């Protein structure tokens, strides 16, 4: 367990467990989900085995405090819990996820923390097999949870919202001692059933990136599309990719049929990637679903196949 998690877990939990009147207006709530799947995982000779996967099960606390009319302090501290083998990071059953604090008013929100970048959040669940073996991150770079992020998110005006985040490199010895050694941004537009976004990174995890996102809900059918270009931020880098990703979900009462496909072409030789996933969710309640899926991933010359069933319960 990293030192931040060791600090937060007992502190936050202890504070939440205190009688609320003991120290003023404590507020907040716990949320999370447990998502476990049994997967027949075929990752080549010697790696054809059944697995129980935890799929980013998590536990978080979040809250707001209204400091003045229309001025809120917002916080969120989320940790992955590894419900399969109890080992998330090192020998710890916990691993840090999104943690932030911010001030939100009519002007928008200024916030900071260790958090998903605006580029990652702009995806808006186009990825229908998120956290499973067909997760978008197996195909596209840019699914980044950035350290040391300072961000501003605008209010939504006529459907438009923007976020920009800067990340100090905290490495002056290597020329990364500035405030904005890395930058991530997004501009999104929502109107009814339509969602559009353009997002990008500048020298985040060593890459420059541009991502376009579109999502449309056509009655029971949800369609999603992502196009992305990314390359090494340094001239002598070896990454130069462009790819696309499409997804579709069709809802039939309590069953949702899902499929998604993505492809990335790389200019750096044998590292083209593809992913294909099909599956179905069966909704038991608003908080609980059963699901099944098949995923085929191709990364260069490596072919991986996954067939699994699982259950997700949110709380």
């Amino acid at each position: 367990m990293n030192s931040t998690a060791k600090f937060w877990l007992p502190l936050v939990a202890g504070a939440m467990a205190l009688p609320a009147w003991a120290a003023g207006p404590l507020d907040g709530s716990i949320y999370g989900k447990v998502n476990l799947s049994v997967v027949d995982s075929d990752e080549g000779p010697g790696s054809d085995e059944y697995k129980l996967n935890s799929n980013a099960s998590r536990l978080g606390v979040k809250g707001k405090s209204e400091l003045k009319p229309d001025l809120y302090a917002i916080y969120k501290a989320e940790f992955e819990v590894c419900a399969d083998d109890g080992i998330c990071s090192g020998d710890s059953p916990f691993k840090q996820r999104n943690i932030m604090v911010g001030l939100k008013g009519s002007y928008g929100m200024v916030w900071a923390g260790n958090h998903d970048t605006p580029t990652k959040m702009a995806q808006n669940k186009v990825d229908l097999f998120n956290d499973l073996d067909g997760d978008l991150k197996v195909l596209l770079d840019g699914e980044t949870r950035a350290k040391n992020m300072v961000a501003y998110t605008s209010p939504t005006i006529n459907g438009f919202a923007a976020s920009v985040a800067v990340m100090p490199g905290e490495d002056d010895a290597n020329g990364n001692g500035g405030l904005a050694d890395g930058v991530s941004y997004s501009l999104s537009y929502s109107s009814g059933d339509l969602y559009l976004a353009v997002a990008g990174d500048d020298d985040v995890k060593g890459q420059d990136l541009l991502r376009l996102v579109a999502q449309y809900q056509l009655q029971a059918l949800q369609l999603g599309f992502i196009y992305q270009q990314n390359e090494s931020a340094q001239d002598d880098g070896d990454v130069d990719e462009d790819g696309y990703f499409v997804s579709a979900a069709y809802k039939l009462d309590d069953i949702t049929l899902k499929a998604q496909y993505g492809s990335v072409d790389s200019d750096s030789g044998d590292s083209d990637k593809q992913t294909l996933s099909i599956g179905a969710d069966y909704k038991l309640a608003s908080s609980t679903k059963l699901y099944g899926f098949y995923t085929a991933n191709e990364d260069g010359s490596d072919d991986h196949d996954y067939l699994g069933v699982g259950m997700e319960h949110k709380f």
Partner: protein
Amino acid sequence: MVKGYQIALLLAALLATADSRANCSFDADSADRLDFADQIIDCEPEPSAAPSPSALPVERLYDAAVGSAGIIREHKVVAPGSLNHTPGAHYEAREPYSLRADAAFEESVTFAIARLHLQMAHYCSDGWAVDGQRSEPKRAVSDPLRAGKYYLYYRFSCAAR
């Protein structure tokens, strides 16, 4: 390595906040959205464990062992330098009144209310809220002359500035 007490605290926190998630559409996936802050503001319930007036420390503005003289007292509530106001401070004041037929003019309940309002304005010059009121008969009812005499209590708190 996570200690046992850390897990216990987490479980305690779960129990302590079990009711606060009612009717909230926020879920674990909402936390990953671009508009997660709006989701938190919209879904997070207002602090549900707000202290009840009876659970707060209250400063009594009277000596319970001593009866009031039952006269109107003046407070310089508007003179410069005399304004008192502690946001959120809680007080309890009382004033006597009488329902006896032979009650003096200044012992009427109307004057008791007026005196209580003077005290509230004095201690909470920027505004106040009455948290509760009650009436109790004067003690020592063995004295028949006190039958029909009461104290009117106002429990009040100063407004946030």
